[in-house]
């Protein structure tokens, strides 16, 4: 139910609204590109990345503890994906608590954990301070095809509705005594999902009807996109240069 909980959290109030959302997204992307290209052995660089996330969090007036605890949710994936590495990667070995661990495997595990954690934390800082509408208009402004942005916005509108419907269907099945214990019972889940699809299809028909009534002509009208202010681009560029400098200097 992690998703249902995050759904309810509204964008936090922000003092960084001064920076254009497009410049903000570009800054985040530059940060992520620098982080994912950093080798695991550059530990000083990773400490500086964590400091930048903390700074961004302070600028955006977002509690750092909340950002960190949400970002920590990516760590189970790295545990599952890479936990075998210290045992299987080979190469030089170190002894730890009576286990023989591969040094190379330990480095890879540390690298993927730190990279995914720092990137997720920066994502939350950026998105929480930008909000859904701001992010969508920024994507449109950055040249993402308009139809894709429209689809994402429309989907966001109905996603909460359908998620609640899905939760209700699950609750109703549980109330009727459905306690799935073995795999073949997945087909019952499939009936619920089929029910959900028919509902979503019928909603699309109703939405389309309503759009036609309001004079919709088949595609959403284009919206004017102002240029990114030069000041914001300069700030974004300065940040990107700082990230790259941290990556190169703190080897």
């Amino acid at each position, binding site marked *: 139910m992690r998703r249902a909980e995050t759904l309810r959290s509204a964008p936090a109030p922000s003092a960084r609204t001064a920076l254009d959302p497009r410049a903000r997204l570009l800054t985040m992307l530059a940060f992520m590109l620098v982080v994912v290209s950093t080798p695991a052995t550059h530990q000083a660089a990773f400490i500086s990345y964590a400091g930048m996330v903390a700074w961004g969090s302070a600028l955006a007036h977002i509690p750092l503890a909340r950002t960190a605890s949400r970002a920590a949710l990516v760590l189970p994936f790295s545990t599952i994906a890479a936990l075998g590495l210290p045992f299987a*990667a080979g190469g030089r070995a170190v002894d730890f608590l009576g286990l023989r661990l591969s040094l190379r495997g330990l480095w890879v595990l540390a690298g993927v954990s730190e990279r*995914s954690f720092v990137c997720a934390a920066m994502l939350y800082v950026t998105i929480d301070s930008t909000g859904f509408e701001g992010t969508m208009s920024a994507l449109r402004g950055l040249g993402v095809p308009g139809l894709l942005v429209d689809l994402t916005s429309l989907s966001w509108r109905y996603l909460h509705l359908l998620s609640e419907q899905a939760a209700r269907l699950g609750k109703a099945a549980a109330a009727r005594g459905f306690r799935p214990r073995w795999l073949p019972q997945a087909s019952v889940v499939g009936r619920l*999902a089929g029910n959900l699809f028919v509902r979503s299809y019928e909603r*699309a028909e109703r939405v389309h009807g309503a759009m036609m009534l309001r004079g919709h002509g088949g*595609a959403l009208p284009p919206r004017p996109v102002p240029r990114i202010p030069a000041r914001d681009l300069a700030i974004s560029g300065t940040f990107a240069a700082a990230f790259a400098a941290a990556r190169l200097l703190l080897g």
Partner: protein
Amino acid sequence: MHVPDGFVSPAINVATAAVSSGAIGIGLARARRAAAETSHMVPLLATTAAFVFAAQMLNFPIGGGTSGHFLGAAAAAALLGPWNACLVMTVVLVIQGLFFGDGGITALGTNIFNMGIVAGLGGFILMRPIRSLLPDGRGPWLASAAVAGWAGVVAASAACSLELAASGTAPLAVALPAMVGTHAVIGAGEALITAAVLAAVAASRPDILPAWARVEPRARTRGHARRKVAVLASSGLLLAATLALLAGPFASRRPDGLEKVAEETGFLGRAEALWRGAPFQDYSLGAVGGGAGSTGLAGLLGTAAVFTAGYFGIRLFQGRAGTDRAPR
């Protein structure tokens, strides 16, 4: 299967993102054309993405106290077509990546490749030959969707582990069996749910099923039987070649039953003397050198050789049978 940031190397990210962008471009162009023809394509794609997102919250047990969740790519492909399924999965993954921290931003292209293109488009491509092989009717149609659902999930997990291995994040010998093994079970749940979704739609709204999913007898053409054989033969060959290439290197290194007996009774030496000149001795290629690649290649070449021999053998007998039954 959502890959976070920093797991896949930049080179793999760029390559998969390029393929994903191409598929999204095709999907968008087709959706634009469909929307222009007074269809409710835009809201339908949006609500279907919302449906896939919501349906992914429904968990099913896979045994051992753990649970898997529905992916929805094959179901979306069966209901809306392969290109629309790519768009739907893209929207789902963009929302999950940006607003729920499920899957990385730099890994978005990779995730769309695995769960949109491999699972959706790949599953759909598999669905058609299976359907053309099976008899008409509801059951076979649902079965083909179930196979597409299973194969889509398993292929996506294989693609994911290949990407992780190529990035040096996980050794292939660990990642591939672990990922494919888990997802072979999760895929069974996906297969059941995909079939159940289609069955539910066919039961309550058969009018919204696309033309290729309608359960109607198809017109039999003269070339139908011949095409059926060609499809059967080529899909069998593809399956065997994939198995030989991917599973061959993981085959047991221990002696098989006959070899064990031969070793114990001491005639293995004679057997080896007899077969010294065999081209793929011990399933590896001398010319390529040992190792997993060599074993896979030997398996592939062996499969091709057996297929060719079998094909011409059957053709030979077919020809004779044909002349026997010449019109009198």
